[in-house]
């Protein structure tokens, strides 16, 4: 398992809804977005490979989660949402409920110990209300969202074109932080190709409005401690997952805790929407890891096939 740290040299905008709503950006990057960005870059570098590759990529990646210095955050498992609090701590329930990201130590505790939330220091150990760490002193804000007015200028009159003003939101990361993701590869060649494509992607940017310099990053390798890929037994998803029919055996949802997200968006360079698709969110817990699948979300008018990466990236729970 390899860990890649992305340090952003420019703010980014990743649409959280996929309906051209620019005023809000997601603060982390889902695995299907990252995978699609990698494959689009791949298509520019090795166009001869892409038809096969898009259907069956040689890599499997997690979503990109926040990190700060050496502190890696993981998405809170859906099974840790329900917590029992002693009556004197009930006032904290609202704050605890909002926490979405746990540092790796807390995350491991949250999977096994029902009283894990007792360890959180709500005053000093929580950042932006959503990130919790026991070990690292967090900055006041790990990222900031900027809302900037944008407009179109008419070429004739040199005036702002009517009703074309809109707000565009971008995420600025603290310079000591960024996003990281985990990846596994079929072989050594695919790892090298992946890293080449990642360098090109860093110079091209990820997310929306790349031609205005958004989403550029530099990457380095990181060491993410204490996670093991799940082959069997209880597993937590670190990516979005769309189950393969083979995953859906009798009782496959027994003891599972999950959230669903709806994913949409545009097909690059076509101005056509993708078919919407629902996936299990990061942090979903299942009795055994799901294989997941590349889902064909093609639209009739287009000559090329369009896929969405719904293959699971699972780690052992506990």
């Amino acid at each position, binding site marked *: 398992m390899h860990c890649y740290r992305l340090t952003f040299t420019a*703010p980014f905008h990743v649409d959280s809804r996929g309906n051209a709503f620019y005023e809000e950006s997601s603060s982390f990057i889902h695995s299907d977005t990252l995978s699609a960005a990698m494959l689009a870059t791949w298509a520019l570098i090795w166009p001869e490979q892409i038809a096969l590759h898009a259907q069956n990529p040689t890599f499997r990646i997690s979503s990109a989660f926040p990190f700060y210095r050496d502190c890696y955050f993981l998405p809170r498992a859906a099974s840790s949402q329900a917590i029992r609090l002693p009556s004197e701590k009930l006032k904290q329930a609202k704050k605890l409920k909002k926490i979405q990201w746990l540092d790796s130590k807390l995350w491991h505790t949250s999977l096994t110990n029902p009283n894990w939330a007792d360890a959180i220091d709500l005053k000093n150990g929580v950042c932006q209300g959503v990130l919790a760490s026991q070990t690292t002193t967090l900055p006041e804000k790990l990222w900031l969202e900027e809302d*900037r*007015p944008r407009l179109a200028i008419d*070429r004739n009159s040199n005036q702002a074109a009517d009703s074309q003003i809109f707000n565009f939101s971008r995420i600025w990361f603290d310079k000591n932080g960024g996003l990281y993701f985990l990846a596994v590869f079929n072989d050594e060649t695919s790892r090298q190709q992946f890293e*080449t494509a990642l360098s090109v992607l860093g*110079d091209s*940017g990820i997310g929306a409005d790349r031609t205005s310099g958004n989403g550029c990053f530099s990457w380095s390798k990181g060491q993410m401690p204490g996670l093991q890929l799940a082959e069997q037994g209880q597993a937590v998803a670190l990516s979005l997952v769309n189950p393969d029919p083979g995953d859906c055996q009798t009782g496959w949802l027994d003891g599972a805790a999950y959230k669903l997200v709806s994913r949409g968006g545009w097909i690059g360079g076509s*101005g056509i929407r993708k078919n919407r698709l629902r996936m299990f969110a990061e942090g979903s817990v299942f009795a055994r890891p799901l294989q997941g699948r590349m889902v064909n979300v093609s639209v009739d008018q287009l000559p090329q096939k369009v896929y969405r990466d719904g293959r699971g990236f699972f780690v052992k729970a506990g």
Partner: protein
Amino acid sequence: MSEQINPKLKSKIFIKGTITALTGLHIGGNSIGMAIGGADKVVVRNPLTNEPYIPGSSLRGKMRSLLERARGDEKHNPMEGGFSLKEGKLEAQAGINPETLLGKLFGVSADKNNGQPTRLMVRDAHLTPASKNQLENAPNTDMPMTEVKTEVNIDRITSAANPRQFERVPAGAEFAFELVLTLLEGDDESQFLNLIREGLELVQHDSLGGHGSRGYGAVEFSVQTLQERTMPQYQKGEPAADVNEKLMALFSNLQAQNVAVGA
């Protein structure tokens, strides 16, 4: 879109240098959270550091619209391109033909795209460390690193004054800019670089940001490095290297404006 085009990436060219504001520069930001007694129109600032910056979209948009206006209607210039006229209305919009040079350089709307990536990327230009230091320690700035300029609108009949205030980055401020040109196999790099040089020159002779007709936003570009990172260099994990002198010479004599800094 009958057949699929598979363009192949050749290299990326990084053009880096500085933008000097020759007159006060106003690129509008969000007025939400405006302080009492503050300026009516504030400039855009980096939310992390509170420094004013020049958004890539502003510089890119200005380059594009000036180049397109210089070329005229796209239909009459099928090689290089220009703006497109909205049918039935006298409204000029960005070019839509992906085959023209300007269409390739700046991109066209997604539904007209022919499967090629947009060639030019303009990154946000941030204050240079020296300029930041100078502005932070300047004794006479009204807001952090900026000046507030009051302008008055006089009623022609009653002579009543209606004042308003603009926040500006003072003349002399320097920003570091970076343009990234993506080249595909078969592209003529000097053609695109020439267009970029012309775009920068046109911006020098026009203005950047708001209120250009009242003297705001005169800028000067100076290109310091021109580097290329080719596909083999990406594959070996090598950094970008300097391009040959012939290409560098393109940017060595950007026609200066002869406006004194701080004038």
